[in-house]
């Protein structure tokens, strides 16, 4: 771990029990994140993005079938903490989250200022007056007019409610903020406003972000690095420069080709077929059924391979991978 390293997720697994069988929503997910860095997690609906966020933040439903792996925060494996310790030392304090559709789940009978103050009062024992001072500071950061502290959620536009939800995730000054689809339900101008807010916070507060989304164009507004998820697994981890220029994994390539461009004459193409069921995912590469490059080896599960600092779960890169390994072994 470098001294800038903040988070290291290792072989994280989260399965759910359902009447139809076990849903393998998060399957041995591994990635790392540095301080001040923003990682985007991209993937189609149902691929396990929200489940991954919940697994990191240990916000688990009752029907968990399997939950294991490691989550190192600084140097502590928080998976080893018991629930009480986790709540006291990690959630809100080190990691906070803006859940999917947060702007629609603000409490309708509480003034938004009181709602934003709440985590500080309950988790840090801050008194009401100091908490409200901090709330005002955060409202300034995210661009909510100060007199809105006394308003109710229904009196605010969608964009303003989303800013309030972001302010709430910031009040406890966590090291890491998880954002689950923070702009998907919003208009372009509101989206651009929210992304501007996040860019400013990232710079001013040296905060780290994990931004979960299926909106590829918008994700490039914040990303330092990109992780692509497919059917419960990470299939590529790349720098934003590499990824948006030319990703490695066949799925990532098709995903990029499906984005309609405003400023290029490139007709978007869709990916034929559907992702596999997470109830009984295929044995080999999970993308094989939709992949134009498939060959014999693909009937076995490819590992996440390191190719010159970029990680990809695809047999096409095995040769590259072997070469780099051989070079390292020789050196």
């Amino acid at each position, binding site marked *: 771990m470098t001294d800038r390293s903040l988070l290291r997720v290792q072989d994280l697994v989260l399965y759910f029990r359902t009447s139809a069988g076990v849903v393998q929503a998060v399957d041995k997910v591994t990635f790392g994140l540095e301080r001040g860095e923003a990682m985007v997690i991209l993937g189609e609906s149902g691929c396990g993005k929200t489940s991954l966020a919940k697994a990191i933040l240990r916000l688990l439903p009752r029907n968990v079938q399997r939950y294991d792996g490691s989550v190192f925060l600084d140097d502590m494996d928080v998976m080893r903490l018991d629930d009480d310790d986790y709540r006291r030392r990690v959630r809100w304090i080190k990691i906070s989250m803006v859940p999917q559709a947060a702007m629609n789940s603000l409490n309708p009978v509480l003034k938004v200022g009181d709602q934003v103050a709440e985590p500080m009062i309950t988790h840090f024992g801050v008194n009401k007056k100091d908490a409200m001072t901090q709330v005002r500071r955060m409202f300034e950061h995210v661009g909510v007019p100060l007199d809105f502290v006394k308003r109710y959620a229904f009196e605010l536009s969608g964009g303003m409610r989303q800013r309030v939800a972001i302010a709430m995730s910031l009040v406890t000054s966590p090291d890491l903020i998880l954002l689950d689809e923070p702009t998907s339900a919003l208009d*372009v101008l509101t989206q651009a406003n929210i992304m501007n807010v996040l860019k400013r916070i990232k710079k001013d507060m040296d905060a780290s972000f994990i931004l979960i989304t299926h909106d590829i164009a918008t994700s490039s507004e914040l990303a330092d690095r990109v992780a692509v998820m497919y059917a419960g697994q990470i299939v590529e981890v790349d720098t934003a420069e590499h990824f948006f220029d030319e990703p490695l994994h066949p799925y990532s390539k098709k995903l990029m080709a*499906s984005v309609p461009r405003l400023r290029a004459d490139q007709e978007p193409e869709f990916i034929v077929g559907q992702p596999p069921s997470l109830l009984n995912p295929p044995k080999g590469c999970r993308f094989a059924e939709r992949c134009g490059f498939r060959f014999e080896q693909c009937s076995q599960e490819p590992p996440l391979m390191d190719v010159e600092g970029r990680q990809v779960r695809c047999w096409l890169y095995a040769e590259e991978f072997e070469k780099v390994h051989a070079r390292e072994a020789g050196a």
Partner: protein
Amino acid sequence: MSDSTVVQEQSIDTQDAGRSNGAMLQIRDLRVWFELRRFGFGRAGSVRAVDGVTFDLAHGEAIAIVGESGCGKSTLMKTILGLYQPTDGEVAYEGSAVGKLGSLGLKQYRSKIGYVQQDPFGALPPFMSVRAILEEPLAINNVPARERGERIEKAMVEVKLTPVEDFLGKFPHMLSGGQQQRVVIARAMILQPGLIVADEPVSMLDASVRVEILKLLRALQASHDLAVIYITHDLSTVRYFSERIFVMYAGKLVEKAPVLSLLRNPEHPYTHALLAASVDPDARNASSLREVPPGEPPSLVRPPSGCRFHPRCPHRIEGLCAEEEPPEFESRPGHQTACWLYR
């Protein structure tokens, strides 16, 4: 002769105009206001959701209407569908005013327009099978029972819900988002309409499924010579889909232009703002802030005087924009902009 002069001449007698220029749909100075609920005495005012909209739609033409949430897009569509009565102005279909149709005429008219409504996940009744969902409009329109099976199968093949037998008995929750949306489109197509109104048909779907559904709609448009009105707030999808774009702001169409003309030479400051805020995927996006006009869309109960965009406009002309409402100016053939900068 420019298009705008044609428009002015036709508005003198709409009933004949439909026949004279062959437009399928003519919207003339349409206003749809919702009265606010009153508290005590006096009137609380109205929400001017659509406030003076004029355009023609040709047979087989695809247009897109782009604008922010709440600007009146759905209200405009529902009025075209005959679900809302105009407060003022007119919707004419093939030369006859929709407002003057009797109940039978209105039923016939509605059967000629397919509606793909906003929010695919709420659009389908949860306890009906695909077969029952597709049969309903046929039954309502007295299609004989023995013809229905064939019509249902044909519509399903057209939207690629195949093999048909696999899907007929399924209920909406058993289908993916993209498949649900294809059922919605099959339902809109089943009475063989001449016009499809698609209200944000793909905004809830993944990028790849979005492209799939839009391509499907476009293929249907070409093969059936369908006219399509596509409503969205996402500018990046329109160029692959429609021939003209209308930009809507606070109840009004502020710019109407052919797609490439609008994307290459946008005119209205609001259109500029929408384009500046829409990005293509690019790692360099992260190192700069987007330019966004200050403030939020105005109240439609008491909209700003003059140009409705003036409180947010960086090019506002003092003494003019806040006082007088800009008419449409035609700077290039077929490209109309309601902004004083183009006078």
